[in-house]
Structure formats: structure tokens, C-alpha cells
């Protein structure tokens, strides 16, 4: 990032502006909320519940790569690693919010909560319907504490897909938010970082590289996959009638081919332990320079399952 150090305040607005220049058919950038930045879906759908995703800037493709048809209606980010301002969220809500209301969907961090909650109040004062859904899937954070103390990771990718499909069906704000809260409560994500030179695997590193909670020495790819799935299944505890979806997200230093080979082992391990549904693999969110992957499980009952079934949704550089 140091190469861009001098332009930090303008980094995210410049980023979104260039995205809109590169793919004007898909996106437009909204100005006026600097140093936060707002990216909107090109073709607005005001007859549906509007879905706004947000968080600290500078990852990828999450957050802005998840804006588009079949995904979110807007992305709002703050400067790198900083929550967006409530003002930017409010402006985005006014730009895309219609009769059906605005859904604020974000990962559970204090700054993101404060600013989304404030934007919620500002939009309500202007007469909009608003709901918030927080994603708390990172099992490596707040171990032994209740779910609302966990940070969010990448289960939000599934929630974005569910929200878009439910909104497109014409569901109300309360119905969409209810589906998302139900799905969210049945997710768990584990970060598995690997030191490939001495075969050391660390489980549970945080999104800002906070230390993990468990290390395996001299681990094989299969052994790491087995332990990953064991830890996740133990955490999320699939119930009878639930089918388990798995999202394998490669971290930045992991190659395209390596990630699929790893995912194959993970899928085998999942099938041995529970009623596995569909696996998806991609580079959805790449934060730190780490070799390894994050794995997300979502236990879907009959109500949630249809929203994950069918053709994959196409985002910027990933299939979901």
C-alpha cells in the first residue's frame, strides 16, 4: 500500500471511479462522500429491496466486486481498513432506496456497526424502511464467546446471493432480512494459513492477521483438510434435514490450481462428515499476503436451499 500512501484519502474513490470507467455497463461510481466511496449497480431496480454491502476498503473482490445483477445493489467502503462513514451509507441509501426499503448488510465490526446503525437512523428520519443484517461467521475470533462477539469474514458472500434472489422475487424487507438472519446463524468460517516450506498449518487467524488458535506441524494437504472440516462441523453442528454448502476462498498467495486441489480434499472430508450440498471455489476476499484458504460452511434447510441452488452467480472475477 505504501506506493499509494500519499493519496490514501482518495484511494477508494479513485478505485471505484476507475472500476466504473472500466466497466460502465456494470457500475457507476457516486461522488461526494470522500474519503469513503460508493459504487452502484448500473441498472437500478427500485421496485426491489435495495441491498447495500459495506466495510473497510482495500480487499478484493469483496466488497465492490459483489455489486451487480444477482448480487448487491451498492457497495460502500471507507479508507483502507476503516469503516465507511454513516454519511456515505446514507447517501447510497437515498440513491438506490425505493418503496421496498434498504437492507444494510455488513460484517460484524464496531466501526461498521456504528456507521450502519447511524445511517439506518438517518434513512428512517427521511421516511425509508431500513433493516440491518450483521454477519458474524469467523469462528477464529472470540472463541468461547457468544456469536455476536464474532467478527465477519466471507459467509457474507452467500448472504449477498440469497438477498439478491429474494429481493428479485419481490419479497418484502422483513422477509429478506429474516431469510438472511436465519442463514447467517447457520454459517461458520475458518481461516487456514499454511507455511508451505515447513508444512505448518495454522487455524483461525483473524482478518487482520490476529494469531490463530491451533497449529499442526508436518501436516499433509489431506490432513489439513480433514482437520479444517472437523473444526467447522464441530462449530456449526449440522442438524437433521440441513444440507451443508461449502465456500472455499483462496488467500492471496495461493495459486488458482492449488486452491482447487485443496478444495477437492475439503469436499471429500465434508462428504464423509455430513450431508454435503454444493461446493464453490474462488478468490472472493483476499486480505493479507497469506498462503492458504478460508472455508465457510452454511447449513441450509428447505427454506434457504433454493436460494443457493441453480446456476452460479457471476461476480467480478469469481463464480458463486
Amino acid at each position, binding site marked *: 500500500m505504501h506506493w499509494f500512501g500519499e493519496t490514501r484519502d482518495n484511494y477508494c474513490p479513485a478505485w471505484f471511479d476507475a472500476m466504473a470507467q472500466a466497466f460502465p455497463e456494470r457500475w457507476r461510481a457516486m461522488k461526494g462522500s470522500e474519503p*469513503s466511496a460508493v459504487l452502484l449497480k448500473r441498472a437500478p431496480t427500485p421496485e426491489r429491496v435495495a441491498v447495500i454491502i459495506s466495510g473497510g476498503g482495500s480487499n478484493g473482490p469483496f466488497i465492490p466486486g459483489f455489486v451487480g445483477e444477482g448480487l448487491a445493489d451498492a457497495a460502500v467502503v471507507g479508507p483502507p481498513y*476503516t469503516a465507511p*462513514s*454513516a*454519511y456515505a451509507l446514507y447517501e447510497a441509501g437515498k440513491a438506490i432506496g425505493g418503496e421496498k426499503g434498504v437492507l444494510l448488510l455488513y460484517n460484524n465490526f464496531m466501526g461498521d456497526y456504528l456507521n450502519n*446503525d*447511524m445511517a439506518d437512523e438517518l434513512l428512517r*428520519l427521511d421516511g425509508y424502511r431500513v433493516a440491518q443484517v450483521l454477519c458474524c461467521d469467523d469462528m477464529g475470533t472470540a472463541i468461547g464467546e457468544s456469536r455476536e462477539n464474532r467478527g465477519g469474514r466471507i459467509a457474507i458472500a452467500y448472504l449477498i446471493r440469497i438477498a439478491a434472489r429474494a429481493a428479485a422475487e419481490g419479497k418484502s424487507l422483513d422477509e429478506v432480512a429474516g431469510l438472511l438472519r436465519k442463514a447467517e446463524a447457520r454459517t461458520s468460517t475458518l481461516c487456514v494459513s499454511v507455511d508451505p516450506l515447513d508444512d505448518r498449518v495454522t487455524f483461525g487467524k483473524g482478518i487482520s492477521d490476529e494469531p490463530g488458535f491451533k497449529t499442526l506441524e508436518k501436516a499433509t494437504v489431506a490432513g489439513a483438510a480433514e482437520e479444517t472440516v472437523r473444526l467447522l462441523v464441530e462449530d456449526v453442528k449440522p442438524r437433521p434435514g440441513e444440507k451443508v454448502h461449502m465456500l472455499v476462498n483462496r488467500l492471496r498467495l495461493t495459486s488458482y490450481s492449488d486452491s482447487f486441489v485443496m478444495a477437492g480434499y475439503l469436499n471429500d472430508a465434508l462428504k464423509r462428515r455430513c450431508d454435503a450440498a454444493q461446493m464453490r471455489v474462488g478468490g472472493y476476499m483476499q486480505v493479507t499476503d497469506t498462503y492458504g484458504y478460508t472455508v465457510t460452511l452454511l447449513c441450509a434447510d428447505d427454506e434457504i436451499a433454493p436460494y443457493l441452488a441453480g446456476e452460479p452467480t457471476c461476480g467480478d472475477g469469481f463464480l458463486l
Partner: protein
Amino acid sequence: MNRADISALKRAMITAADDIVAAEPELTRIDMVIGDGDHGIGMKTGFTALKRELLANDYESPYALFHACGLCLVKSMGGSSGVLFGTLLIGGLEAIRGLDSLDGTEMCAFLGGGIDAVIRRGKAKPGYKTMVDALLPAKAHMEQMLRDTTAVGPIMRAAEAGALGGVEATKSMLPRLGRSKNFRENAIGWPDPGAISVSVLFGGMAKELSK
């Protein structure tokens, strides 16, 4: 002053903004010891923008004036302080919708609503060494004073007195939230900068509304 009209409220917020800007060196000095040192600068940035906003615009109601003030802080400050001071000015707006001036009862309902909203949103409990420790006694003092008078001047003075008492009380508290919790025992003896800012804000408003 019994009732504050729009121009009195505007003057009150401008005076408060000047006082916050003047308090910046003191806020920064304390926050350098027990926080990350950015509280004073953030407040100065926000209230400089707030004064500019007030001087450049006219408002049709106290609601519109405080809405613009809150939004201005949220937009210009960022971070937690921007949201929380914005919440203080926005969270109680429903109580004054439709009014063209405020007496002490209405001011107490407006600020009390904002104080409740800050507590709800910020998740700080009393005794955590935060702005809440100035806000709650300010609210209690206002409610107490309402038994004697409904004039806006004395009510605002009561808010200031309550907040100042709260600032004093934060000196002996251990920080429980935010960055300054990392300083723990070193923070004993120092007041909370957020609590000081509340007392300066209410004091500036009181100065104008007591005239």
C-alpha cells in the same frame, strides 16, 4: 431565556463550536496520554465544519438546524466520535419535529433522546470512562431542574453542570472501551476526553441560551 428560537439556537451552536475548537489543545494533550491522540483533532475538524455549515445556511426549524449539525459532524469527522456526536444531535429529533422554538422541557426531551440514542448505539455502560459518564448526569440535572423551571437557559446550565460533574468523576475510572482501555491504570487521574467535549458543547450552548 425562556424559549430559544432558531436564531438563538444557531448562535448557541456557533458558540459551542468555537469553544470546542478552542479546547482542542487540551483535548489532544489528554488523549495523547490515555488514548490515541486523535480525539481533539477530530472534534476540531467536525465543529469547524459545523460552524461553516451554520454560517452558510438558514434553517426553517430547530429540527432542520440540528439535523444539519448532526449530519455535518457525521460527514466531516468519521470514526466513532463522528457517529456518536452526530447521534447526540440527531437521536432526539423526533421530540422536536414541528416546533419553531424550544423551551427547557423540549430541549430536555431533545437532548435526552440524543443521550439515550448514544447509549443504545455506543454500548458503553456508566463507569466505562466514556462520554456516557458526562451525558447521564447532564440528563439527570436537566430533569431535576425541570421541577423548578421550564426556561431553556437554566435547563442548559443544568446540563453543563451535570456534564462537568461527570468529567470530574471519570478521573477515577478505569477505561473499559475503545483504544484507551489499553492504557488501563495509566488512565487513572485523567478525565475522559469525550466527556470533556460533552461538557464544552453543553457549556457553549448554555452561555448563549442563558443571555
